[in-house]
């Protein structure tokens, strides 16, 4: 490959007076799994569509494999759009074959690849079934397979988990990991932070058309004050015991089985370091719970609770889709 598959520089998109994407710069490193996070309306889909040349940018430059998006560079990309759509009267196998051929595979290769993918994902018995006869989840799997069929170097998946039940979400996660293991770079958008936490080595957060964070998961969590909770037998002064080790401890409440303490971690230290320090100091530890920092908390810290609430609202339809 030739370095970054996708580079956006100061890209802006307006719809009338509304600015959907404002001066977005993004460099997608080769071989990574990048999560593009934010609530609905944050500008994720618009950014992805501009990245592929489906929609022109008003300002800024876009480089896909080192050049403006064109059919040549797009052949190396597999794109799953947010708004799913297939030809309802085509069979599952013909659908995958057709899109693979459009991406440059020969007829024989495309047919063989579609059978291979359907066999691998449990769709073999449906290969001659029309899309209109498939369940929504299965049709979505067919579309995902159509995206992967030509073995793209770069996968762009717009809300890939939306509409899938938990079992199929897991199947998709496995597929993404497999594609990554094959060497593909993956950029996917989602408003469900848990997927990004499980899959990504880097995340980009968007809110109201602006990029609010771009970095690794560790860097994201580092923005939060990390800590842990420790319980010790009643009356033990944990603050005094940990102070020499560089940890700050505050008694929070008594649960009847000892005192609960909130530990603020020293810079660069983890929750396990605090536990180790307490034991070494001879503290009668009865309980331990490291803070479980979530990307949602990071997002809240970046944009505020009101903006983050949009994430929760965005979750609702996805859940309903999964049920339907």
């Amino acid at each position, binding site marked *: 490959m030739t370095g970054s598959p996708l580079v956006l520089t100061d890209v802006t998109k307006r719809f009338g007076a509304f600015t959907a994407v404002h001066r977005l710069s993004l460099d997608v490193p080769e071989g990574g799994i990048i999560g593009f996070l934010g609530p609905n309306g944050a500008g994720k889909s618009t950014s992805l569509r501009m990245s*592929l040349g489906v929609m022109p940018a008003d300002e800024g430059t876009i480089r896909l494999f080192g050049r403006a998006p064109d*059919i040549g560079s797009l052949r190396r990309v597999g794109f799953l759009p947010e708004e799913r759509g297939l030809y309802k009267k085509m069979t599952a196998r013909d659908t995958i074959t057709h899109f693979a051929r*459009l991406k440059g595979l020969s007829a024989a290769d495309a047919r063989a690849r579609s059978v291979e993918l359907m066999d691998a994902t449990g769709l073999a018995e449906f290969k001659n079934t029309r899309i209109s006869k498939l369940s929504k989840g299965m049709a979505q799997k067919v579309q995902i397979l159509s995206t992967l069929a030509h073995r793209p170097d770069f996968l762009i998946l717009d809300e890939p988990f939306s509409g899938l039940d938990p079992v199929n979400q897991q199947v998709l996660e496995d597929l993404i990991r497999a594609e990554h293991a094959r060497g593909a770079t993956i950029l996917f958008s989602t408003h469900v932070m848990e997927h990004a936490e499980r899959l990504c080595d880097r995340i980009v957060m968007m809110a109201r058309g602006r990029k609010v964070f771009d970095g690794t998961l560790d860097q994201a969590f580092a923005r939060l004050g990390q800590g842990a909770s420790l319980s010790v037998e009643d009356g033990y002064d944990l603050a005094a015991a940990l102070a020499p080790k560089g940890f700050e401890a505050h008694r929070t409440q008594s649960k009847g089985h000892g005192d609960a303490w909130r530990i603020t971690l020293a810079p660069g230290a983890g929750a396990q370091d605090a536990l180790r320090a307490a034991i070494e100091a001879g503290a009668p530890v009865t309980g331990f719970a490291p803070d479980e920092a979530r990307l949602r908390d990071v997002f809240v810290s970046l944009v505020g609770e009101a903006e983050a609430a949009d994430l929760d609202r965005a979750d609702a339809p996805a859940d309903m889709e999964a049920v339907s």
Partner: protein
Amino acid sequence: MRNILLIFRRDYLGYVKAWGFWLSLAAVPLFLIIGALFMSFANHSSPVRYYAVIEPNRTYADAIDAEFARGEKRDIELARDMAEGMNMPVAGDTADIPPLTSRKFIEVPAPADNLDGLRPFLMGEATVSGPAGDRPLFAAFILTPDRSELEYWSDDVNMDTLRYTAESALRDLSRRTALRKAGLSADFVEKAEDAAVTVPARRIRSVSEQEAAGGEVTLADRAPVFVAGGLAYFLWLMIFSIIQYLLMGTIEERSNKIFDTLLTSVRMPELLAGKLLAVFAVTSTMMLSWGLFAVGGSAFAASQVPEASNVIAPLLAAIANPGILLPAMVSFILGYIMYGVIFMALGSLCDTIQEAQTLLSPMMILLMLPMFAIMLAFKDPGSPVVDMASWIPVFTPFLLILRMPHDPPVWEVVAQMLLMLATTLLVLWFATKVYRAGAVNGAGIGDLGKMVRSGFRKKAA
């Protein structure tokens, strides 16, 4: 090119795999076969009907019989004229040829001499004997005592053929009687008509051509006009046929939200070209199938009438004439693209079939305008209206084809082809914008005006 073919292939197979396509394909030949069989059956199954004439002598009965005979002679002469027009062999004397169809009304002797006596026969309660066996009397003509009317009595008041024939017979009888009273022979009018100087059509040619081919107008002289008219009508029919394909096909893709996927695989012009080509192929398949059906029918007819090649050869020669073929092909291709992309772009702005159906009526009306122009041009190709209309881009593809047999100035032909090309490119440019706005960005019919304004403003800038 590969992507165009892939889009074409998918769309084409999508159309031809649908039941509706096969029903449409079968409908026309079936309609023709069933229609022909029905007509033939109706003709043959039409019963022989008896009628009687009550009069003191056979004046009116003979006049009616003579009128039937004249009608049969007219049919034979009409068939002869058509055969001669197509350079086909004809039999010797008309009088020697038997009637083309058997007579359905036969006069029988009246079973009674008054209406009361005839009533049971006319009402089907009694039958009379005749050449076709015993049957009820279908009708009776009764001359009134003052001889002012020949009353027509029948139980079936909707079947007027016999009455009309009688009226015609009596008019002829009256004319002959008046001529005789004036001292003129009965066939005076016919002799006068036969004596008139004829006005045969002659085609002016160069001296050498005239020496070789003579001056008579043959089918070869008329074939270019027939061919041009046929091509212009064929183009119109093709465009008329594709409207719903282009509208509905685009709506399906818009509602299936498939454009983002497609546009990351193919270029917009490739997508449009593939889709246009597919619809063109679908309609061509239909026309070709119907054409093969017609050729099959013609081949069968030719096997019965070997001289049918006299008709086919001049038509083929006219089609192969580059002076007609080249402008016709240019007009056909550009006209098809121009109209096709307009319909496709409009389809891309519709979310539902109902919404598209509201567009169908105005589109049909829009397409009727070229049809009127075709009819006018066919009737009077030299009309100044046709000349002017041929410079209006929506009419040019049709009218240029129709004008070609009449040798318009070369500069006009070239200029009109360039005008068509420029218009097609302009329409293509704007339709692509509309298509992209509709298909990719979800614009609707209501946004069309805005797109027109912004499109041309940007172009002007």
